[in-house]
């Protein structure tokens, strides 16, 4: 059977089993499944936040609590309908999430994790200690949900509601990840690259954080009306840890891992809570011992979790992501050949007392390949970072088509038509070649997270992938279109970087050592590609160590040494310049 059909069949069987569960399962089973559904909802948000975007949250249970308490208070004290409790719960969660996100998402790596522990604990103490929230006894008699003619009361009645919401959330995240904003979210783990291709990482992090919090808030709303009772217990740090455990067990980057992990942890917990007190002869939450040990062992021996392993049981689908046809994306017109498009004037960059770039000035014209060469440490890559806005300038100006660039962030500069490659490749190794290249086209699309979650951006997505596929073919990597970038040779990965830069539709292309690691024939193909781009009117700034490659390709050269320009001109003249010879080979006069 074909792989796609087989996968659909497995999915169908899962949904069928779920749909039939209330008909065959006992009350205990259905209750358990309801909890799994609720936990999955929170875990799904964490998959997006932690598994995909790499932002660890040890405080997710607190958002469940905000949602649950908001609706519980509004419905019990003010007699508001539970259906109005939902938007209120979402609004309250959003407000808390935006404040906490604004505060903590600036933290990086483990600081962020510690910060989330801090507010996770703080909020759980707020639930237990603030007057009016019912203290540790909580809020009883939360009304159950009802629609005209139907009242949700039994466990079985809630089953379909909970799983409907959970599966919708799952579908939204599947849709989101397979889209322009989804690729941007996956690029968040490499903020340098993301910013260089027009992604506002700070804002995107907040959106992702907000979405994960809202899913938790919905879970809290369901929790309150399903259990008809709210107390601080389920919103403490312990539960936040369990949510994280779920996605570690399930496989942090996998959407279905959220459900697999929630099922495994919830099932295991229930089983352990039944068996451990008998085994140990006293009662208490001893399942924490097993969970703790399980997670340590998982992280030591199988940090990928359950889902990748399950995934391998089924055959891979071999459908290319490249669309057969789509409407072409709009392209910027190149300026008139020979007109100056980039002017660097007296550029300076100091690292402490070291002047990495010292008073450098040059110009690039449309339809020209300019080589920037110099010995190691001359300041070439620093100059690249100054033009593309990755480093702030200490002095001087960069003007692009008459507009000042210095002071603009990298994401704004790529929007003006300047795209780059990196000396040390900045690619997402697990993503395919076409997806990596499509990141380059991020700035050419407009549809956001909501459209992606609802799959309303399929037309634009096809255009973007079509454009990405075109660039992949253009650089000669068509046969690797759907391979994971990490499986390519380093030289080929550099070529992927070029394709990604081209997908950004640049007027000026900055290439940092593109020929390193290429074989002779590949270099010739690269040179032909670059000449072709130049002939179309693109301007190219090239940093390269392979002098033979540079000499045969560029129109002009700028030679740097110790942060300063020591020569400029056509290759033949520069090559004979005594200062250049001295910089590369040392002074002729110092020998014995």
């Amino acid at each position, binding site marked *: 059977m074909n792989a796609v059909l087989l996968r659909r069949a497995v999915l169908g069987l899962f949904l069928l089993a779920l749909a039939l569960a209330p008909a065959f399962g006992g009350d205990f089973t259905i209750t358990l499944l309801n909890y799994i559904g609720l936990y999955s909802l929170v875990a799904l948000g964490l998959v997006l936040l932690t598994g995909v975007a790499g932002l660890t949250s040890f405080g997710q249970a607190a958002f469940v609590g905000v949602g649950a308490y908001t609706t519980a208070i509004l419905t019990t004290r003010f007699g508001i309908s539970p259906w109005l409790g939902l938007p209120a719960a979402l609004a309250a969660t959003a407000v808390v999430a935006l404040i906490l996100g604004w505060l*903590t998402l600036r*933290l990086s790596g483990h600081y962020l994790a510690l910060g989330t522990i801090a507010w996770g604990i703080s909020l759980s103490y707020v639930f237990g200690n603030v007057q009016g929230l019912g203290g540790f006894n909580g809020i009883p008699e939360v009304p159950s949900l009802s629609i005209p003619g139907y009242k949700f009361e039994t466990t079985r009645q809630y089953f379909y509601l909970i799983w409907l919401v959970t599966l919708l959330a799952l579908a939204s995240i599947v849709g989101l990840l397979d889209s322009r904003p989804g690729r941007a979210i996956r690029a968040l783990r490499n903020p340098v690259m993301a910013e260089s291709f027009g992604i506002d990482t700070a804002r995107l992090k907040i959106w992702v954080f907000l979405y994960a919090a809202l899913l938790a808030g919905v879970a809290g709303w369901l929790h309150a009306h399903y259990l008809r009772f709210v107390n601080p217990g389920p919103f403490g740090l312990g539960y936040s*840890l369990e949510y994280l455990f779920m996605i570690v067990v399930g496989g942090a980057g996998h959407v279905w891992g959220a459900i697999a992990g929630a099922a495994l942890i919830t099932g295991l917990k229930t089983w352990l809570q039944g068996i451990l007190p008998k085994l140990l002869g006293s009662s208490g939450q001893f*399942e924490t011992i097993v969970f703790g040990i399980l997670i340590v062992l998982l992280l030591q021996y199988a940090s990928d979790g359950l889902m990748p392993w399950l995934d391998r049981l089924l055959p891979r689908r071999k459908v290319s992501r490249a669309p057969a046809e789509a409407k072409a994306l709009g392209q910027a017109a190149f300026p008139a050949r020979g007109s100056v498009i980039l002017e660097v004037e007296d550029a300076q960059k100091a690292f402490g007392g070291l002047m990495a770039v010292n008073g450098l000035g040059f110009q690039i014209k449309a339809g020209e390949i300019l080589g920037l060469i110099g010995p190691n440490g001359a300041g070439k890559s620093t100059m690249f970072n100054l033009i593309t806005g990755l480093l702030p300038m200490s002095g001087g100006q960069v003007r692009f088509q008459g507009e000042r660039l210095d002071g603009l962030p990298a994401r704004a500069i790529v929007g003006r038509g300047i795209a780059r490659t990196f000396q040390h490749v900045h690619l997402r190794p697990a993503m395919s070649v076409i997806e990596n290249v499509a990141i380059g086209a991020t700035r050419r699309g407009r549809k956001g997270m909501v459209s992606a979650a609802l799959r309303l951006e399929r037309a634009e997505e096809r255009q973007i992938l079509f454009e990405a596929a075109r660039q992949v073919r253009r650089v000669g990597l068509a046969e690797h279109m759907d391979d994971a970038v990490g499986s390519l040779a380093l030289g080929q990965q550099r070529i992927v970087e070029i394709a990604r830069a081209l997908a950004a539709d640049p007027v000026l292309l900055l290439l940092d050592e593109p020929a390193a690691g290429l074989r002779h024939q590949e270099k010739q193909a690269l040179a032909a590609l670059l000449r072709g781009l130049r002939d179309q009117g693109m301007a190219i700034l090239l940093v390269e160590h392979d002098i033979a490659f540079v000499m045969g390709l560029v129109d002009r050269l700028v030679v740097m040494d110790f942060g300063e320009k020591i020569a400029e001109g056509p290759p033949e003249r520069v090559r004979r310049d005594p200062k250049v010879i001295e910089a590369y080979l040392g002074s002729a006069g110092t020998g014995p």
Partner: protein
Amino acid sequence: MNFDIALLLIQDGIVNGALYALLALALLLVFAVSRVMFVAQGEFVTFGALSLAVLQQGSMPGTVWLLLILGGLAFLADLAVAWKTKRWEGLRGSALLNLALPILLGGLAYWLAPLKPPLAVQVILAVALVVPLGPIVYRLAFQPLANASVLVLLFVAVAVHYALLGLGLLFFGAEGWRTPAFTSFRVSVGPMLVSGQSLLVIGSSAVLILLLTLFFNRTLWGKALRATAVNRVGARLVGIRTEAAGRLAFALTALFGALSGVLISPITTIYYDTGFLIALKGFVGTAIGAMVSYPIAALGALFVGLLESFASFEASALKEVIVFSLLIPVLLWRSLKTHHVGEEEEE
């Protein structure tokens, strides 16, 4: 609030702050040497306090079983590695540390507990039962992940906390314990009556911090730890075994944790889960010291103690909220100061 109350709160704050400082330094030491943010440090506090409490009842504390079981597992782990690599030379040391020492300490506790020895002996025994848990936990949980990212190690530390929390409940039960004061001595300083226990806590913390400083500056082992903290690869190149450094750091952190527990148990009722919160407050202090500076971390911890003390007077229900919320602006400030454009996140 009048002046007398303020003085009382200050005294309280300094006593707690001194303990948090002790824990903060231990946390910092472990982080510097092994890159582990050891949030499970609090369980050592709990184990130290509760072991002493049980010893005072004349019974053998459950820490003995914990030590024997985890020690046995650590030895088995070493045995498995030796089997796989066919290198047996490290095994004797492992047997001594993970098998012989726990058995010796367990036997001692079994023999001494019913005799109700003097307090000093009980304290030493309680602390001695906890200290080997440090290197054993390091061996089992962290040593195999020496090259993992800080975030993964934090995750493991959280899982270790989770497991030890359950084990604490299993071996000590859910009820709280409070040990009698070490001394009934009281002294008036100006208008203030200072208890001997407070002085003991402050004095011991000061002495321990001083000893730690001397250890770092004057002994070869201390210097080896500092070298490992600065540059793990470099330390390895000059012959310092990073595993040994990790073991030592964890032994020290267990020692400081257990001592804090023993010192605090006459002041506060200790439950199986109390230690975690105490150590987290030490963490806030550490964070104020940016996970690098020992003196600032100690001062930060002192500040946390004072803040907590005043918060508990002004808004006792929300004192934990206030203390932990403090961490966020501190981290934010730290993070802004250390953030560079172009810094790559860990995968």
